[in-house]
């Protein structure tokens, strides 16, 4: 009876839901709308486009970001690059001035007011049909814009996201994020085919200017303005598309502390937006798969990750304490060295372990698919390994911090 009441049993429903969701992503990926999106050819059409680069103390990366934009394969008379210095206190403004000589480049300097004010300042300075945003720590492939524009053929499409991966990943943490971002490429591509996206990431998301105007421009969105805008677009009944071959590379945190800070901001922003102004979307059939499946699923994923983390922590501690306890007084040379040779008989193939293995295999399949669909260059081995062994351990750290921040009303600075 004790066996049946094992704490592992509490994890089964969550593992079931996780495998269901991964299966759903794969099935949707093979469905007609996703296949049609992949078959969509790059377009020769060249409507007017403005790309806004909001900057706040980005002196180290803004030049490379601008250079990648200048290398875009797009008629120069149709492309505006708007660099917005949002009251930087470093040499960002000085670095920006190097690019003022290029045709189509505009520089706006303003007092610091937050990312949404910088974006709005850029929007106010252009009449372009489509407006793109690019964080100042990101770099685009030259053909990316030709992949994005055809996604706007449907008049109901208000925004298009790109295929984001990590710029030159180094070290175990960045490689882990690289695998995670590529996993995100598959997810975004699959979910966009059923209009299930709730974030238009800072790196190279594009918007239809008329819709942005109609919706009143960007707002403060609990430090996740891109998510707030995406939710507002969805609530207004528009669609968010994805250009899976429009590759953009972004710099990511290289230390655990900065990674936790970044993800705490993202997660708390998600919770504050979704449980606040956009609560009405949750479970609402009017908003289709986003309301019925994606948003409830994302909230459940946060809750289940925290629960599984505590469960794993309890199990590990319990086993470790028991293992140390029964080995007390036994010579260390015997106690902590494995005995005997490998024998299939002792392979711990229990339900929990096999379920976890299936989930991880499905994740690896989705990562591989993302890399293939987007033609993202580089190797993934280090990313696979670090993702498999590290992600589940570190993710609960920011989930716990974010949920406690939201629960206790703690607000943190952008870079604290």
């Amino acid at each position, binding site marked *: *009876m*004790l*066996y*049946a009441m094992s704490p592992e049993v509490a994890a089964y429903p969550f593992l*079931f839901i996780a*495998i*269901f*969701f991964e*299966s*759903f992503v*794969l*099935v*949707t990926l093979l*469905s*007609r*709308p996703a296949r049609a999106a992949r078959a969509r050819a790059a377009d020769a059409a060249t409507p007017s486009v403005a790309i806004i680069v909001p900057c706040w103390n980005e002196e180290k990366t803004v030049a490379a970001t601008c250079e990648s934009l200048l290398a875009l394969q797009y008629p120069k008379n149709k492309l505006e690059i708007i660099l917005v210095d949002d009251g930087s206190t470093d040499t960002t403004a000085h670095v920006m001035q190097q690019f003022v000589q290029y045709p189509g480049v505009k520089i706006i300097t303003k007092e610091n007011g937050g990312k949404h004010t910088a974006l709005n300042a850029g929007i106010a300075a252009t009449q372009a049909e489509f407006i793109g945003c690019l964080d100042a720590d990101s770099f685009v492939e030259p053909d990316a814009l030709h992949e994005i524009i055809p996604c706007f053929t449907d008049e109901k499409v208000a925004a298009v996201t790109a295929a984001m991966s990590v710029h030159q990943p180094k070290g175990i943490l960045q490689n882990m994020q690289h695998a995670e971002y590529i996993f995100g490429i598959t997810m975004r591509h699959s979910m966009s085919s*059923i209009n299930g996206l709730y974030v238009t990431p800072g790196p190279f998301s594009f918007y239809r200017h008329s819709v942005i105007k109609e919706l009143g421009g960007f707002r403060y969105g609990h430090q996740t303005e891109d998510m707030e805008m995406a939710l507002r677009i969805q609530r207004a009944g528009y669609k968010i598309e994805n250009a899976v071959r429009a590759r953009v590379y972004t710099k990511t945190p290289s230390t655990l502390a900065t990674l936790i800070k970044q993800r705490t901001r993202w997660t708390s922003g998600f919770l504050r937006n979704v449980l606040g102004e956009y609560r009405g979307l949750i479970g609402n059939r009017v908003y*289709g*798969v986003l309301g*019925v*499946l994606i948003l409830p699923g994302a909230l459940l994923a946060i809750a289940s990750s925290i629960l599984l983390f505590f469960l794993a922590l309890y199990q590990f501690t319990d086993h470790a304490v*028991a293992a140390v*306890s*029964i*080995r*007390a*007084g*036994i*010579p260390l040379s*015997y*106690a902590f060295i494995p*005995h005997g040779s490998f024998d299939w*008989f*002792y*392979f*711990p*193939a*229990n*339900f929990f372990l*096999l*379920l976890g293995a*299936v989930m991880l295999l499905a994740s690896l399949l989705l990562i591989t698919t993302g890399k293939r669909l987007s033609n993202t260059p580089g190797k993934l081995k280090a990313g696979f390994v670090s993702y498999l062994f590290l992600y589940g351990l570190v993710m609960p750290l920011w989930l716990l911090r974010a949920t406690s921040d939201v629960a206790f009303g703690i607000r943190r600075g952008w870079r604290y």
Partner: protein
Amino acid sequence: MSLVVRNALIALGITIALMVTIAFTVNYLNNARIAELSTIEDQLSIDTLSLDTQFSLLETAPCDSIASSTTLISSLADLGSRLSYTENQLGTDNAQVIRLKQQYSLLEIRDYLITKRLAAACKTKPVTVLYFYSNAGDCKDCDKAGYALSYLHDTYPTLRVYSFDYNLDLGALQTFIAINKVKQELPAFIINDKQYYGFTSLADLENQFPKGALSTSTSPR
């Protein structure tokens, strides 16, 4: 039916199929474990009977059976280890595990009796430990005692350790417990006919062994 509903139903079907496959795989592996244990037990049963018969046949030179007896105790220890693992996997109340434990206990008792007869006939002094434990949650030191005995057995391979679940429903075992007057103060040990109760440390347990019994050069004879 909308595309999303159709995809959700297909995904649900895939998830259920995966779950069922995993359940069948686990069940198959557990059955394979049980089958392997049964095979080992059958072989050991034949070996024990063979040794017993050999002992009877060689009445004039019974000590020739000692080599077979030494091999048998090693197989018995391996079976015990596998049985313990299976018990952890399937639970202590699993009917097949209980049946295998009953057979295993019988084999242990028979081997112990043969060992005693051989020792008497051949004038050898094997060190034997009868270890009584409980899985019913009433023996907090049984895991420690079991691990300490595993260590002693692995370190001194000639040591003969026989483990018995005190609460196992088996007539022969209950008789064995009654004959040896083992009290329900677990863990309980009978080290070369001397009773010892409780487990405090490896050193205390080692002190209960006859002098010189615990050395790597200990001979079974």
